């Protein structure tokens, strides 16, 4: 039986209690509480959680990544790693919403839903049982449906939420179907036992096992935004409130990858199939579609939405080559952490731009570098980090990722091509990031500087320090990732 003092349960205790308490508190205060009051409580809860997990990593008081466990939750470094990445993004979102939510209704519920969604993602990463994974998956999804549609007077927010809801509900239905097959074939819902059961499966039942894994890929793929399951993503990212998009793009996506690593990658090893090629093809398709479509966008949210589809492709490279080189999963995890910070910061920057200037059209962003220097700098740094320019942190993760693909070349003839495709795509992405940067810094009249929201500036500064600092001195992050990446059985 799982210890009540294990890390995930402590996080549930902190975030869940605060998340449930916030709306009650708001009713008790006659719904008059200011936005900042609830934001500070949510911030404190998130900061306490991050401190708790971080403390365990620093003291080394954490089990190495075990991947499987006899319980529904595995208290290991893999889960802890994802917990930190997601909590960082949730902190960004909370801080970034500070200004965004100022004049809007029901702030208490807004922050409560952010906390609930966050604990859902964290639990997804810790799950070692399919039932737990499914419930956590819904705990992550359902609050984000509401958050995406939180601007009730705004048609595009509602449309975003409806589309997100439809695809999200479909993905969870598909996941249950996949779980039902996996359970039927192996008689257990524990992922470890399912994988062992798959390995010992009768040949006549093999197609069903394959079908089940295929359904898992499709179900998780919806959340990760893999091609061809990505159609909802640009509309949703464009319409939903920008701080929420930061949460969606930078965190829920990552939960999809965590689930995919726990279930699909390891499950497929058990099936002993040449599945990696399929993942490789999806990876190349995903990054190409994402980056090509991103070039054509006029709206910065849409552009970043496509770029985040592209990034799902990069991360998938690591999963595709993972059976043959430890660098595969390490690169993926590294990229996941970096992408969480970069994308989170980029969308928070957009939230800042929206709250002050109320524009998202790229043409209207001319001269942003002078109007809002800190936000623009943070945005540009994140964009260049996304493109993988040295010496920013994003460079190192791509290096490990593509290095992993080259490393696997001895076992898989097509693996180096993944790296080549990745480099080409990065070059492509540099084109539109560069175009955006030129717009912001070299175009437009001499405009006066306007007041930037302090909370947005705080996120920008944190992200810039993170990206530049770990770009120049990547050692600690690399060690962190090496510790957290599970070793393939």
């Amino acid at each position, binding site marked *: 039986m799982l210890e009540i003092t294990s890390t995930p349960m402590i996080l549930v205790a902190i975030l869940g209690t605060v998340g449930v308490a916030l709306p009650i508190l708001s009713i008790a205060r006659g719904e008059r509480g200011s936005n900042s009051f609830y934001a500070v409580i949510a911030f404190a809860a998130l900061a306490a959680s991050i401190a708790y997990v971080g403390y365990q990593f620093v003291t080394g008081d954490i089990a190495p990544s075990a991947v499987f466990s006899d319980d529904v939750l595995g208290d290991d470094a893999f889960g802890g790693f994802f917990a930190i990445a997601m909590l960082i993004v949730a902190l960004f979102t909370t801080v970034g919403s500070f200004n965004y939510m100022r004049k809007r209704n029901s702030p208490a519920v807004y922050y409560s839903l952010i906390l609930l969604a966050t604990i859902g993602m964290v639990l997804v990463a810790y799950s070692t049982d399919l039932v737990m994974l499914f419930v956590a998956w819904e705990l992550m999804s359902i609050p984000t449906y509401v958050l995406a*549609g939180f601007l009730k007077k705004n048609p595009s927010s509602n449309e975003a939420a409806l589309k997100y809801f439809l695809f999200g509900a479909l993905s969870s239905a598909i996941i249950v179907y996949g779980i039902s097959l996996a359970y039927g074939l192996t008689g257990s819902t524990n992922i470890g036992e399912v994988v062992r059961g798959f390995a010992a499966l009768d040949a006549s039942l093999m197609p069903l096992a394959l079908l089940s894994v295929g359904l898992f890929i499709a179900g998780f793929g919806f959340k990760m935004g893999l091609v061809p399951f990505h159609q909802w993503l640009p509309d949703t990212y464009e319409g939903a409130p920008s701080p929420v998009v930061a949460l969606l793009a930078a965190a829920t996506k990552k939960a999809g990858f965590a689930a995919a690593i726990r279930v699909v990658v390891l499950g497929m090893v058990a099936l002993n199939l040449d599945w990696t090629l399929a993942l490789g093809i999806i990876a190349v398709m995903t990054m190409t579609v994402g980056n090509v479509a991103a070039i054509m966008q006029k709206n910065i949210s849409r552009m970043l939405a496509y770029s985040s589809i592209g990034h799902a492709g990069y991360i998938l490279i690591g999963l595709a080559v993972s059976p043959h080189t430890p660098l595969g999963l390490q690169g993926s995890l590294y990229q996941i952490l970096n992408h969480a910070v970069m994308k989170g910061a980029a969308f928070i920057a957009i939230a800042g731009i929206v709250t002050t200037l109320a524009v998202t059209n790229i043409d209207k962003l001319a001269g942003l570098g002078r109007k809002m220097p800190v936000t623009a700098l943070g945005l540009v740094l994140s964009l260049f980090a996304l493109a993988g320019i040295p010496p920013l942190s994003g460079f190192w993760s791509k290096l490990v990722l593509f290095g992993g693909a080259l490393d696997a070349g001895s076992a898989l003839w097509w693996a180096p091509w993944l790296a080549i495709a990745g480099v080409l795509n990065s070059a492509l992405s540099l084109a539109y990031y560069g175009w955006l940067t030129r717009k912001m810094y070299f175009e437009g009249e001499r405009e006066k500087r306007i007041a930037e929201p302090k909370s947005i500036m705080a996120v920008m500064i944190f992200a810039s320090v993170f990206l530049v600092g770990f770009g120049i001195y990547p050692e600690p992050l690399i060690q962190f990732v090496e510790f957290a990446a599970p070793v393939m059985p």
Partner: protein
Amino acid sequence: MGTATGIIRALNSGVKHLAIKRFTLKYPEEKLKFVGDGYQFDPSTGVGIAGLKGRHMLFHDHCTGCQLCSIACEGVAEAIAMVKVPEDQKQNKKSIMPQIDYGKCVFCGLCVDACPFYALYMTNDYELSSFTKEGLIYTPAQLQVKPFVSQDSEIQITGLTVITIGSAIAALELRSLVYGSIALMGTLGGIAGFFLLLDAPFVALFQLAVYVGSIAVLILFTVMLVKRELIFKKIEDKRRKLAGIGLMLVVMMSLGAVFLESGVKTITTDEPAVDFRDIGTDFVTYYWPALIAMALVLAGSVTGALVLARREDVENDQRTS
């Protein structure tokens, strides 16, 4: 002459049989239908309760080991032997209970009449065939198990399938959304019927209470709330519909083929169903973190749905006042 009339009469009788109901059952696809649970006897009144005389069922907590059943059988078939009960099982004073050899038993029921302690009854289970002689000898432990006798579940499953799938199609295709949502209730109720057939009464109840009782009703209310004339609006083009039907057929065929080709086809079980109390044990021992997460899901969805559905202008009034 004789030949011709013979042929005509044969044809006549053949044609008649096309119309009249068949007397035989297509065993094993079709099974006998029973009334009651099998032959029983009440020693206090001395009255037997009519029923099929099939395999016996022994109630260990009643049997005293008095051997009367065995004595009754001695003059009939000598099918009953009194054997020692293993120590870990329920005992009586003499530690003996009847063991019945169905290679010998003639299903006369005299042993049931002889038992003064309500310990021996007969059940509707008549499918006792075995590949070995030993397989026909039922120990007290085996006699204790209540047989699972399916009566006409084949018919039930066909009927349920028709209801479930038919109303699923109706839910999607009926022009009116109101009727559509009522049809959806049919699907959900049909699924609950399947759960009952699968010996999952608790899940069936939950399905009825939550799905049919609240989800479907909620949908119905929403549909009624949304303006009437818009409900009947239908925008569909033929091409997409054809493509959709094609997709559906591909999914059904391929998945159906996978299931039929795979080893799943022959799986049946004779084991008794799990007790639904086991589910409760599961919840508190193994799945308890999921239960907590579930509670958070419900909390989040309720507050979220309330905030979304609340009218903003009313709320603003409250704020200014």
